[in-house]
């Protein structure tokens, strides 16, 4: 981490960049938050550890409008989001100095809590310099231990890869964290009966409080004004009446990011209700891969996006799924 801070200071000092976009320590050890750093002194708050799951690429939309370059730290998966934004002309490559940072898998405090660890005060073993095998957790109920791998975010178990697709330089080592099948959850749902599927999603989506956290964090959901906030479709939403009415929002949201979603998993990470929102996006990714050939959004900015492209021989919509 110190290496990142040193390099940031250097780049600020020599005028390459005017500000730094990174993470700063939060009020608890497990909730660092995205932040700008304008001066060397500001950087004393800088942090980069296993809880820095936040994807900073979306902030580059606004940073691109600012004077001068912004130094941004991107994890391998974040760099896909940045690239996708670049493809859509939302960020300015000239305005960004990208340091690709290593990643050993990011942690999920909720997953730790689910393992029965409550009253957390301090967590060690989550720094990039650590072995990242075991987390030693100090709680008000005494010390606990949890394996690092068991505390990882879902997305890290099915990581796209630890190579950055866009960067100016790369600092820090990464570690392969894949130990799951990316589409296994989607497949599990696909194999359910319609009734089971419906009940599953009704149960999950009824939790939605329309706080819009998923929309606000999503690097693909970056419209200046969301259709659900404008009168363009007579679709500005009112308060919930029906417990399942949020389906329209989530289906359309998934549809709007289909072919653009890099599966960064931020939607699920930030959902205060713990709805596995990535299951929508991942369903579309799986379908696109199956129907139109493998496609990874953000990987290649010159690739034809699946929904703005077609083949004469594409499958028919009514076709029974195999």
């Amino acid at each position, binding site marked *: 981490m110190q290496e990142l801070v040193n390099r940031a200071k250097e780049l600020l000092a020599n005028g390459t960049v005017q500000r730094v976009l990174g993470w700063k320590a939060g009020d608890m050890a497990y909730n660092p938050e995205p932040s700008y750093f304008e001066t060397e002194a500001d950087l004393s708050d800088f942090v980069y550890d296993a809880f820095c799951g936040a994807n900073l690429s979306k902030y580059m939309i606004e940073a691109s409008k600012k004077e001068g370059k912004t130094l941004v730290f991107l994890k391998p998966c974040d760099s896909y989001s940045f690239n996708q934004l670049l493809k859509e002309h939302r960020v300015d490559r000239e305005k960004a100095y990208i340091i690709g940072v290593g990643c050993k898998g990011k942690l999920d405090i909720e997953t730790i809590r689910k393992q029965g660890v409550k009253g957390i005060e301090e967590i060690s073993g989550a720094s990039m310099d650590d072995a990242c095998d075991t987390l030693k957790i100090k709680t008000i109920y005494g010390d606990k231990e949890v394996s690092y791998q068991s505390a990882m975010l879902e997305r890290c178990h099915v990581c796209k890869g630890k190579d950055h697709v866009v960067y100016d330089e790369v600092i820090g080592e990464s570690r392969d964290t894949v130990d799951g099948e990316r589409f296994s959850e989607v497949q599990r749902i696909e194999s359910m009966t319609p009734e089971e599927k419906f009940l599953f999603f009704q149960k999950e989506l009824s939790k939605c409080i329309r706080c819009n956290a998923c929309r606000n964090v999503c690097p693909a959901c970056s419209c200046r004004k969301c259709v659900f906030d404008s009168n*363009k479709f007579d679709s500005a939403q009112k308060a919930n009446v029906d417990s399942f009415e949020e389906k329209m929002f989530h289906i359309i949201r998934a549809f709007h990011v289909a072919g653009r979603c890099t599966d960064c998993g931020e939607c699920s990470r930030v959902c205060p209700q713990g709805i596995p929102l990535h299951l929508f996006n991942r369903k579309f990714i799986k379908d696109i891969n199956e129907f139109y050939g493998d496609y990874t959004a953000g990987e290649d900015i010159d690739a034809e996006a699946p929904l703005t492209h077609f083949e004469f021989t594409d499958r028919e919509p009514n076709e029974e799924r195999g």
Partner: protein
Amino acid sequence: MQRIGVFVCHCGSNIAATVDVKKVVEVVSKEPGVCHAEDYPYMCSEAGQMKILEAVKEKNLSGVVVCSCSPRMHEATFRKAAERAGLNPYMVEIANIREHCSWIHKDMEEATEKAVILARAAIAKVNLNTPLKAGESRVTKRALVIGGGIAGIQTALDIADAGYEVDIVEKTPSIGGRMSQLDKTFPTLDCSACILTPKMVEAAAHEKINIYTYSEVDKVTGFVGDFTVDIRKKARSVNSDKCTGCGVCQEKCPSKKSLNEFNRGLNTRSAIYTPFAQAIPNVPVIDRDACIKFKTGKCGVCEKVCQAGAIDYNQQDEIITEKYGAIVVATGFDTIKLDNYDEYAYNQSKDVITSLELERIMNAAGPTKGHLERLSDGKAPKEMVFIQCVGSRCSDTRGKSYCSKICCMYTAKHAMLIRDKYPDVNVTVFYIDVRTPGKNFDEFYRRAVEEYGVNYVKGQVGKVAPLPNGKLLVQGSDLLDNKQILKEADMVVLATAIEPEASVRKIATMLTASIDTNNFLTEAHPKLRPVESPTAGVFLSGVCQGPKDIPETVAQAGAAAVKAIGLLAKDKLTTNPCTAKPDELLCNGCSQCANVCPYGAITYENKEVNDHGIRETRRVAQVNSALCQGCGACTVTCPSGAMDLQGFSNRQIIAEVDAICR
């Protein structure tokens, strides 16, 4: 809220027999925004239209709904009526209660209920209609013809004769195209050059025609009436203004090993060359891949012998940018490659040739000076076999599914010419069907059989095998005799399928003109608009649209010219007002809409916007309403709803949905 008048047509008994029109009037008159509702036996009649006029004036209506037959029948009629009443014509919506209701339902209660719902949907839509105005765009009075074969020449001549400037772009060093390679033409057996060269000269001499040979279209932007085209004039290495066309350079050129494209590679040419004697312009080009000067830096013979001082080794490609109102594609055809047809031994024997190669052999300027001889040993053939449908009418992946259309006739021509000039040569034609529709065509084919003794065998050839004695063993079917024929031939001529010239793909992409799976350009309507591309301002001439012979090509070339002239004769074009329109404040600038636009109507601009007090420069979508045809593909691609379609807006369609589902 609009002030809407609803008019329910009886259409005699067509509607009124099944739909209770009085009931419809009664129910819809209570709909929000409706200030007037009435029924009338024939709304489309003059008296019916007057009802609209009167009501608009009396009740100060701002919108009109007509419940009648399909909008495909009378939408235009009622729009005009509204216009006469002083309303914007796009404030009219039709509820189709005839084709979509009274004609398909028998139960009156059911049909009436549905008619009411359809009327409600139309009322809900009109409530959100806004007056639309057809735009105007100017027309540049100049046409571009891509391709300088007989199709392109004829189109250019016809357009130029009507008084408009025309540029021809031809990628080879001379105009003339495939027709200049032909020896004789069916069914009259005129010498091809004798009828073509006067046209070439006429085009070259025409004051309204400007010819760019050895040139290609590099880039096309713009739209109907206002295209901007970059033409790449490839470096000829010869100054056209100075060259006198004396030909000494070609004689003296020491590099003579290049395959002669004009003679289909059957002999060779020099590195500096004009493709054929009557070339226009009669100015050679240097083939830089073959030229010793360009390869080694040494030589320069042509420069030394050129008394006019026309050789210019330093010439560069030149880009010419020109504006056009109309573009005619006349890119022509080539024969398919025969690599997939090993059974015909084309790649194994020099004596198996294509029909186009035979044209060159028969031609006095060809590789054999017009003598029919075997290319392997120069001997005169005694036994010749023609095979029809080579690569045509194949539904497998090796060939083309279509009939190449010209082969039956040119084969009859070849057979006849050979029997006439060399009566001792036996000619056998293996055919599947002989297709000779066309004026004097069947008579021509029958003459080949009856007067010239050409042996037509119904059946395809399965195999051609070169024999050690230099002959070719042809194994074919005689289906009428139910026999298998084995014939030793001296030469085999393959009626090879034709396909669009390969460069047409690139050109179609530049023009956003659609192309079918065989690379033929698609016509706007296969029957009613056969010489227009669906892309406005682009016209089709000759084989680029589909296989055709010379008379058909010339006829289509003229038709394309007339269509182009019709466009150029206009000073201004009115455009469809139902076009896409972006809301700049909502636009993300992501370019997704531009990626799906089939017309290239969407561009992006960095534009200063004022978003509720925030002034900033944003990348926003711009729609060229002259180009946009109003399909709406962009509107669905746009996640923020910034892109909307006038006349079919998101809110209008949703209002219709709501009215129907209510």
